[in-house]
Every structure is written in C-alpha cells, then in structure tokens.
C-alpha cells in the first residue's frame, strides 16, 4: 500500500482544487497528441487531428480530456487504495481500448507540464512537484496493473 505523508496529501489536494477541468483536461490531452504524435493511434474516430491547430480546436478531444481528468478524481478521493479503485478502468484500457501503458506516462508528463504552466516557480515548488509526480506514478501504475 502506498504511504502518503500529510504534506503530500495537502499538495495533491491543493493542485486539484486549483484545476479548471474544462481547461486543463483538453490542454493536456491535446499537448500529448501533439508532442507524442503516435498517441493519436487511439483516436482514429475523433475527427480532424491533422495538425496542432486542428487538435487544439477539436471538440471531441477536448471533451475526452475533461473526462480523463474527472477520472483522476476517483484516485484523489481514494488515495489510500488507488490500485483497487482503478482495477476495472485498467481492465478497460487493456482489454477493450488496447492502450500501450507507456502512454499513461506520456499523458502524465504532459499533464504536469500544463499544470506547471498555470503556476509560478514559487507556487509549484519542487516538493509539490515531487508529491504530484508520486501521485501520477501511482495512478499510472494502477492503470497498468490489469494488463496481461
């Protein structure tokens, strides 16, 4: 089981409380699709992904970005058992969506960059970044757990 210190919990809750899901979600997913274009393989049915501008303006991608971020809510609300909270979601990504789990790490990195972009170096301190990274690695690991 993952151990969280009080300050780690506080940092992670603080980040989520400042998040505008409808802004950050779409930006993070769009950035992932732009910076790591091979991730577009999972979005064949999502309309125009022809170039960066098209991706950033794509409403289906935006909606999906928001959805992903709301999915992380569940991890936030169940920080002491993210592993089991995400069991079904992990199965879904493995059995139905067939997403290479390395993509979770890529999206997590883009999410961090987008969140950082909304803060100053004094707000997103190294300690806060460390807590956030720990949270994301637990999420990424839980999502990859049911793959076989």
């Amino acid at each position, binding site marked *: 089981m993952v151990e969280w210190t009080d300050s780690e919990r506080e940092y992670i809750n603080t980040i989520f409380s400042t998040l505008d899901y409808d802004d950050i979600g779409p930006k993070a997913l769009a*950035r992932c699709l732009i910076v790591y274009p091979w991730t577009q393989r999972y979005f064949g049915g999502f309309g125009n992904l022809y170039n960066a501008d098209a991706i950033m303006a794509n409403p289906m991608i935006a909606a999906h970005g928001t959805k992903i971020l709301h999915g992380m809510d569940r991890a936030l609300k169940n920080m002491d058992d993210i592993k089991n909270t995400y069991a079904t979601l992990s199965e879904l990504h493995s059995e139905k969506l067939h997403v290479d789990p390395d993509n979770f790490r890529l999206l997590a990195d883009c999410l*961090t960059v987008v969140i950082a972009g909304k803060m100053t170096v004094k707000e997103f301190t*190294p300690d806060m970044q460390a807590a956030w990274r720990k949270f994301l690695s637990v999420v990424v690991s839980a999502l990859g757990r049911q793959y076989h």
Partner: protein
Amino acid sequence: MTLSAKDKAAVKGFMSKMKSRSEEIGAETLSRMLVVYPQTKSYFAHWPDLAPGSAPVREHGVIFINGVYEAADKIDDLKNGLLTLSELHAFMLRVDPVNFKIFIHCMLVVLAMLFPEDFTPQVHLAVDKFLAQVALALAEKYR
C-alpha cells in the same frame, strides 16, 4: 525523429528567449530534479549542499544550461558537435543515460512555468525533440 528545419527554427527562436533567464532555468531545473527524482542525487554526493537553490546547485545549473545552448549552436550536427561532452559523460561522469530523460522532463516543466505564453505545444514538441537528440548525442561514446 530527425529535426526538421521548422523544429530547428522553433528551437533557436525559443533559446533566444531563454537566454534572459538562464540562471533561473538552470537552478530551477537542477533543484527540482534532485528533489523530485532523489536517485539523481547519487551523482552529486560530493557537493556540500544539495538543497534547492543552494550555491553548488545554482552554479551547476548554469553549466547545464550553457551545455544546452552549445548544443543548439551545433544543432545541424549534434553527434559530432557534442563528441567532447559525450566523452566527458561516458568516461568521466558515467551518468546513466536514463537520467538525461529525467533532466529533460524537469527542464520542460520549468520552461512551462517561466514562459507560459511562449511554451506552446508546438514549441514543446520542437524543444523535446531537440533535447532527445542532445541526449542521444551525449550517449554516443558510452559503448
């Protein structure tokens, strides 16, 4: 993942913006790397102070960033341009190349914070591609 002319232009353009805040970028990147990825501290055990913003961290941050600028100047032939740096990392420092990726991620996070308007997805892509090529060039002499 070769750098296109557009990538190179984007990198050079952004580097010129970075130059006004080099010290800050270097210090923040290194500080964060040591805190967020504590295993990287293993390469700096001989420093008296590894705390974020400490003197050794700030001094070394500048060295790192100047290395990045040097690479940008040699963007048309990174492999040959960075041979000496590669030899340094391969034979003297012997830094496991996995750490290059870690450093790069920390730098991207810092760039996003310091240049919120300029660090667009397109610039992020070009800079990430460039830094990945730099990492490859640095690892050239390893084996």
